[in-house]
């Protein structure tokens, strides 16, 4: 039988250390909504999402109440819209109409975000893919809850440099289109290499074509819990450090597993995966940078940071895989800047640069995330940064992503406020030397030699 100590430990994690289930995300296939008439397609999409997810928020809230664990977000991810809209959309305005439908139904069912305004173009772009990408600035400036992601490379296919170059411009255009809100549109736009089909986290969530009709994926969190556990083993060796992280990750993941199973049962939707990521929020004590500090670096970005992050990421996975048989999505430590108070402090102290963040992305999940850069950064420079990050993903056979926010009208030294979970960020300098001749070559970078495994 459960004892008092265990009850107190769990409740302290929840009340004092910000343990929460970050998101329950319902993946919904829209493949059966396809129609060549745009109005019919929009109606089909609205109805399918509404019917599938109308009880999602209420169910999430009820589970949260019964177990006493906060479930911060309820979200929906859908089949990449470039596939769904290809038959009906002849212009980028047509695609933006679908974004509006997604926004409308997301608001109706009360979810926090809806992801899947996406295209998978790791090798090449169809006409529909290109139109969808070109519609992103319009779509994100006309909607509130829609998130967009574009997969431009993979270990199997190499990097589609035409898409990378295009995304440099699209990010700038999205920033421009949402400049009254400090270019907030870019916070909902992410560029991927090796994008997973079952990621529950935004902005990169979409429902892959390899998935079932509907699925429940759950993202757990808990940087504060790991940090508190590590405070108790200060000065101990690496073995004890790693053991502590593993045990904590296990406990956190088990909570996610419980919530996922329960949500799946109540909604009558199969359980997909647990994404066992350490996802920070701007709240004090909910920071991955603080864990790195606790491991022993003065600020995130100091020498030793990459090694500390590598071990953290690995131990989180080792603890998590024991706790759930179906681990997927991104699963690892997230290192967004604006969403993590410790990262913001590190940038303000001059300890953390874009280049160091890039190195850190080699050993953890995701990539250059929620980084505000000067609004006058050139499209080609953004494309160059994307290309670098995609190369890391391609060569290391891992997911990498770029979510940069060129804040129009602002420069280095200024701060941008996004609000809520997105936080605020100091604008970081970007290397100003040109890469125009590189990114303008056109074509694609071939797949690496270690992808030829057949």
């Amino acid at each position, binding site marked *: *039988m*459960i*004892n*008092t100590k*265990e*009850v*107190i*430990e*769990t*409740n302290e994690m929840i009340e004092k250390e910000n343990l929460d289930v970050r998101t329950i995300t319902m993946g919904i296939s829209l493949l059966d909504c396809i129609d060549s008439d745009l109005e019919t397609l929009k109606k089909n999409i609205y109805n399918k999402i509404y019917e599938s997810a109308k009880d999602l928020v209420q169910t999430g809230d*009820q589970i949260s*109440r*019964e*177990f*006493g*664990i906060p479930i911060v977000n309820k979200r929906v991810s859908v089949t990449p819209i470039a596939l769904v809209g290809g038959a009906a959309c002849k212009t980028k305005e047509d695609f933006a109409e679908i974004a509006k439908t997604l926004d409308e139904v997301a608001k109706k069912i009360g979810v926090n975000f809806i992801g899947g305004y996406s295209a998978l173009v790791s090798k090449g772009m169809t006409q529909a893919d290109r139109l969808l990408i070109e519609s992103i600035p319009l779509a994100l400036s006309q909607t509130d809850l829609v998130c967009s992601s574009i997969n431009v490379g993979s270990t199997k296919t190499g990097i589609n440099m035409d898409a990378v170059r295009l995304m440099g411009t699209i990010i700038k255009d999205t920033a421009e289109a949402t400049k009254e809100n400090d270019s907030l549109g870019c916070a909902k736009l992410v560029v991927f290499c090796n994008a997973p089909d079952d990621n529950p986290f935004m902005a990169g969530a979409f429902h892959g074509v390899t998935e079932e009709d509907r699925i429940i994926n759950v993202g757990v969190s808990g940087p504060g819990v790991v940090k508190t556990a590590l405070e108790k083993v200060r000065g101990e060796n690496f073995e004890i450090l790693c053991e502590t992280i593993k045990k904590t990750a296990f*406990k956190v993941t*088990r*909570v996610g*597993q*419980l919530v996922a199973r*329960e949500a799946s049962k109540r909604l009558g939707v199969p359980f997909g995966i647990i994404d066992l990521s350490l996802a920070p929020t701007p709240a004090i004590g909910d920071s991955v940078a603080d864990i790195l500090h606790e491991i022993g670096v003065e600020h995130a970005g100091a020498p030793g940071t990459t090694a500390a992050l590598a071990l953290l990421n690995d131990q989180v996975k080792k603890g998590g895989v024991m706790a759930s048989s179906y681990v997927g999505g991104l699963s690892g430590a997230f290192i967004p800047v604006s969403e993590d108070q410790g990262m913001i402090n590190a940038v303000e102290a001059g300890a953390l640069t874009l280049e160091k963040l890039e190195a850190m992305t080699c050993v953890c999940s995701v990539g250059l995330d929620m980084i505000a850069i000067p609004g006058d950064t050139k499209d080609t420079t953004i494309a160059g940064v994307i290309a670098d990050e995609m190369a890391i993903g391609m060569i290391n056979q891992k997911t990498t992503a770029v979510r940069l926010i060129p804040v129009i009208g602002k420069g280095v030294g200024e701060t941008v406020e996004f609000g809520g979970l997105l936080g605020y960020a100091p604008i970081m300098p970007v290397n100003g030397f040109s890469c125009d001749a590189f990114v303008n070559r056109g074509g694609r970078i071939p797949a690496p030699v270690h992808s030829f495994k057949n």
Partner: protein
Amino acid sequence: MNKIIITVVGKDTVGIIAKVCTYLADSGINILDISQTIVSGYFNMMMIASMEGTSKDFNTVADDLEKLGKDIGVVIKCQREEIFDSMHRI
């Protein structure tokens, strides 16, 4: 199955256990285990109870207990047992 964990935390006063137990008895909720400590004047109680014999649903019980807690100046929390089982048992 169908067990709940009730935790009561707050400043110690006369009759906390009595009031909680009276409510549970009136509701047909059976107490399976109970433990209590006082740490520097603060009252800490944990109960494991079974919902098998009650006609009340979880939300009602949780709301009633929360209200009862407010009346006597303590925090009463009600959670399903599975969250603790998942976290602490393999």
